[in-house]
């Protein structure tokens, strides 16, 4: 797992949060983990194939998830229902797509699988067997953590 894979995700999140939420997330301290573990209530998993293979896991605290969708829709949200989790999946999808576009400028061509939603912070996802790096993105409404486990062929 190379650290240069991380920055495109930071850039893509800043870009997407700026457009969608008028917010500028700051980068927290990176940490290495052995497995992809949901750290918050609302989680979106995305698989990556191509020149890089692996998994991405977006973990949103519940209050952050609800506030994000509140900002986007202009409506108060009270539960992690299909509407909220689908909006989060789209956000994760767009960030991942943009990050991989940045990576493709370094001539790495990758595809992503449709997002999968996991609610609750228990258990481990059987998504990756190799180490991951967790990128915390700190905002006024909470911290999104993206666990990134990507490896070359």
């Amino acid at each position, binding site marked *: 797992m190379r650290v240069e894979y991380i920055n495109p995700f930071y850039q893509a999140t800043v870009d997407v949060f700026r457009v969608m939420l008028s917010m500028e997330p700051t980068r927290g301290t990176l940490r290495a983990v052995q497995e992809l573990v949901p750290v918050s209530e609302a989680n979106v998993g995305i698989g990556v194939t191509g020149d890089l293979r692996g998994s991405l896991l977006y973990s949103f605290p519940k209050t952050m998830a609800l506030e994000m969708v509140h900002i*986007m829709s202009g*409506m108060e949200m009270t539960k992690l*229902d*299909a*509407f909220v989790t689908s*909006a989060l999946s789209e956000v994760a999808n*767009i960030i991942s797509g943009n990050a991989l576009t940045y990576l493709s400028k370094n001539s790495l061509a990758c595809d992503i699988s449709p997002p999968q939603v996991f609610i609750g912070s228990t258990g481990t996802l059987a998504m990756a067997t190799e180490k991951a790096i967790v990128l915390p993105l700190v905002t006024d409404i909470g911290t999104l953590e993206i666990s990134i486990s990507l490896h070359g062929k």
Partner: protein
Amino acid sequence: MSMWKEHYRVGSDLIDTQHQELFKRVSRFIKVVQGDEPWEERLEQVKETLVFMQHYVIIHFADEENLQKEIGYPELERHTRIHESFKGEIQEFAQTVEREGFDEEKVQEFSAKVMTWLIMHVGREDQKIGEFLRSRGGHK
């Protein structure tokens, strides 16, 4: 808090008005989809909105593409492809619910997708048209 934000303006009266209408409709759609009344009671409005969206995006996308042609916007072709792909997604969803019925959860997911797409598209892609317009002194 409104779904439409003032910084989404691109500087063409026609396009800005259409964008506001789209945001208003999507916002109303979400309110219906997220409402507390029994699903059967909300279904009529859901169907109406879907029909409206199918027609309105065609009109709006055509007007926006015409504006791009008129001002010589260099990314017209790419932008048109993005429009075509979104029209295709709406069409596909309409066919799916026609075939399989209007499942509440499917409609919730679809409305979230439309909302996210609209914000990203108007908030980022269309802003490039706005920048281009401003760079040539605005729209007459």
